[in-house]
């Protein structure tokens, strides 16, 4: 049973959300002084499980043991008392406070703030040195880059006496270099005898850093293995329940004419921040141009400008040899009519109206097409039959055109959006985060659809923060940093280190930032 070397043990934990059995008979044992990975597709129940351990949710059934002692964890306070700390995917920090103030938030220790701060400062200096966190405790959190903010979160947990540290998808917002630094910190923590639980869906991270790994699938724990005894392919198979292709299979591209071009495109937002700087790109027929970059470096703005929802401050946008920058056509509605499809980065915020049915979402953006209207009346029959056709072609489940969009899983929602934009057969397709929050089975399908569309001669722009995805999907890759294209290269020449350096804003000396030399194509 529980050996005294076990830091955390779960026995037969069950959790329901309404009819959804989010965690089914989960048992897990984490050894002290190890890094334990929990891997699974989005929606597999990893985050739910860890929220139970951290006291955000209560398990409906099951027991939790910390250091061999059974614990009732009804709220995060109880969990902190038991020595469990959590670093959330979305940081829980007050941007306008200093690092120090953030860390003592909630554990100020008495009415006089200055005493608490002085005590905390001393303790933090010790912690910092011990774990080489390299952080200025007097810096304002809002000024720090994300990598450092994450370290503040880690420090916060350690300050509260955490012996077990849970990190939920910690690398989603980091560059590969920042992620490496995080892993070094985690290794130090392990050496000091702390226990780390790493939740992720990235196989690479699991292989790089963990000692043991547990795989979850559809709410169940399907395997516990020692990392050294496994490999990426095997883990992927466990996650999905069948073997999957990690590499997209595609033939070489035969790029044609540039269909959508930008010339020195600039965009300054309402706060006066320059989001796009002199962006010059050619999106060519029959080719997938991938944009790599850490999120927040202008990719979203680029998509929105090209999609017609934001007006560029200066520069040109050329669509099918016509400068449309100042044309009346340069808006989201008319661009769709002249052959531009747009799969937005965030399907919940922009791509779908979640409270609408699937068939009402089928016409979003195309609702004034004659196909969906009979005079002044919306043709509900046409909407439903089109939606049924999309559902069939894209294998959306459940196949119910009347179901609310919010009732579909992430992957199926994404398929609904993709179907809507791809089935209009646009000449240019803008795709933001094609597979964010989508399970592996659907990723494969979506990638294949995009390749097929490329082969049919469409010009495709793919923006993704998943570096693997950009590398495997694109024919050409441009890297964005701080609103600029810092480099553009053939996908065959790309590797993680090269891209990673560019993503951190380091230009390659010989490569020109804009691939003007590529304009030789007729």
């Amino acid at each position, binding site marked *: 049973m529980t050996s005294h070397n076990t830091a955390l043990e779960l026995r037969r934990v069950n959790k*329901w*959300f*309404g*009819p*959804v*059995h989010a965690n089914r008979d989960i048992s897990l044992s984490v050894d002290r002084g190890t890094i334990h990975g929990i891997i699974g597709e989005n*929606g597999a129940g990893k985050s739910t499980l860890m929220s139970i351990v951290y006291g955000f949710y209560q398990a409906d059934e099951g027991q939790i043991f910390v250091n061999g002692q059974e614990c009732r964890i009804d709220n995060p306070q109880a969990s902190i008392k038991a020595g469990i700390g959590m670093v959330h995917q979305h940081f829980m920090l007050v941007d306008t406070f200093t690092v120090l103030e953030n860390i003592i938030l909630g554990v100020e220790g008495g009415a006089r703030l200055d005493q608490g701060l002085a005590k905390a400062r001393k303790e933090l200096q010790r912690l910092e040195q011990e774990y080489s966190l390299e952080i200025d405790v007097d810096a304002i959190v809002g000024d720090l880059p994300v990598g450092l903010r994450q370290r503040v979160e880690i420090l916060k947990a350690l300050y509260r006496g955490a012996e077990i540290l849970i990190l939920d998808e910690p690398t989603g917002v980091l560059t590969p270099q920042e992620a490496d630094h995080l892993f070094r910190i985690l290794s130090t923590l392990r050496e000091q005898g702390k226990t780390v639980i790493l939740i992720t869906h990235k196989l690479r991270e699991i292989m790089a850093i963990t000692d043991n790994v547990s795989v979850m699938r*559809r*709410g169940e724990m399907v395997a516990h293995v020692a990392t050294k005894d496994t490999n990426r392919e095997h883990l992927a198979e466990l996650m999905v329940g069948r073997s999957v292709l990690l590499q997209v299979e595609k033939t070489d591209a035969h790029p044609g004419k540039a269909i959508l071009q930008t010339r020195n495109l600039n965009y300054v937002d309402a706060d006066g921040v320059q989001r796009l700087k002199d962006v010059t790109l050619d999106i060519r027929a029959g080719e997938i141009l991938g944009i790599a970059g850490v999120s927040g470096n202008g990719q979203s703005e680029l998509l929105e400008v090209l*999609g*017609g*929802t934001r007006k560029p401050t200066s520069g040109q946008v050329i669509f099918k040899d016509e400068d449309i920058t100042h044309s009346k056509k340069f*808006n*989201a*509605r*008319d*661009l*769709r009519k002249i052959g531009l499809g*747009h799969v*937005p980065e965030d399907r919940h*915020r*922009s*791509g*779908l*109206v*979640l*409270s*609408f049915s699937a068939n*009402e979402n089928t*016409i*979003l*953006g195309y*609702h*004034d097409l004659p196909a*969906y*209207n009979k005079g*002044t*009346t*919306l043709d*509900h029959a046409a909407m439903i039959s089109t939606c049924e056709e999309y559902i069939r072609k894209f294998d959306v*489940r*459940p196949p*119910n055109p009347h*179901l*609310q969009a*919010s*009732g*579909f*899983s*992430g992957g199926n929602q994404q398929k609904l959006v993709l179907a809507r934009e791809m089935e209009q057969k646009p000449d240019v397709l803008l795709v933001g985060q094609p597979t964010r929050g989508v399970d592996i089975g659907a990723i494969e399908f979506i990638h294949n659809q995009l390749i097929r569309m490329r082969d049919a001669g469409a010009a495709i722009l793919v923006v993704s923060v998943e570096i693997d995805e950009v590398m495997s999907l694109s024919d050409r890759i441009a890297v964005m940093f701080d609103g600029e294209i810092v480099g553009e290269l053939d996908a065959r020449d790309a590797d993680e280190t090269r891209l990673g350096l560019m993503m951190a804003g380091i230009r390659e000396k010989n490569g020109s930032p804009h691939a003007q030399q590529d304009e030789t194509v007729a």
Partner: protein
Amino acid sequence: MSDATAKFGAPAKVPAWVNLILIPLVNLLAAFILSGAVILIVGDDPLQALEVLIYGAFGYPDAIGYTLYYTTNFVFTGLAVAIAFHCGLFNIGAEGQALIGGLGVGLAALYLDFMPGWMVIPLAIFAAALFGGFWAYVPAYLQARRGSHIVITTIMFNFIAASIMTYLLVEILIAPGGQSPESREFAEFTWLPYLHDFLPFPNTPLNLSFFFALILSGAFYYFMWHTRWGYEIRVTGQNETAARYAGISPARNIILAMVISGALAGFVGVNEVLGVHHRLILDFSGGFGFVGIAVALMGRNHPVGIFLAALLFGALYQGGSELAFEMKTINREMVIVIQGLIILFSGALEHMFRPRIESLFKRRKATATAEA
């Protein structure tokens, strides 16, 4: 979607009737229980009061006429608030829009009466929509293009409307030689026909506006769910970012929804001014605009629900006056307390019982699935 096909990760949903019928009824019941307690405290019999209320609202033809007359106003303002809700806007200004709508009716009836009645009446109705719509347009424009919050501006516009009406009725439109702030009576051929003018029905203020309200309810349904303009308004209201992404201009739809909202509220003027008072008076809007918010909330922004909620409030207005008349300890103010409680529970405290009732159903469904 049945339980068997419930996908992993799909959010738990409660059956529609819980949301549409059960929760409004529970809210209503809570309001009635509390009202009963208040009546008990002042020393009267709540059950007898309820009996008087219901009899007073529906017990005899006159009562029904009055109830439906009030209902008409609530349908107009309920629809007005609802269309703004569908666009994600909180129109607190139905009261002022009703007043200004009535002003339009009055001006048409007062100054166009050289035309025959069959021309003046439609023009007056059109003027109600035009004036009410304009009164909503200004806050809508400020919201859409300048970002001034619509709640604040529409509240302010209520005050401005009331002041304008007072000024006009005291200084300009007042009947020559008149002592009270009201206009001269309109020529009789411009009056909207009463129901008792052409049906064997007792003399009540119920007039043709009631049927107009029913037609508008139908039109409202068609517009919201069967035209692309209604679709655009709903997209804007549900998700403005998605609207922008789809090439739907939120600003345009905010203005469109508010203008229609103002026009609908303006029709209160048709019922009150053209149908009943036959002259412009002060404060004919009588709080209908504010109650319209509760009507829309209770009616779930759907014309059928709005009609039922409007009927409830119409009955409360009419039965309430009867109650104040019949029972000695219950005065006019007490009736307002009861109305206030209903508005409180079905409007402001809409979400008090909801989470508990919903979780009850979700849990029941969950156990059913788990055992299956």
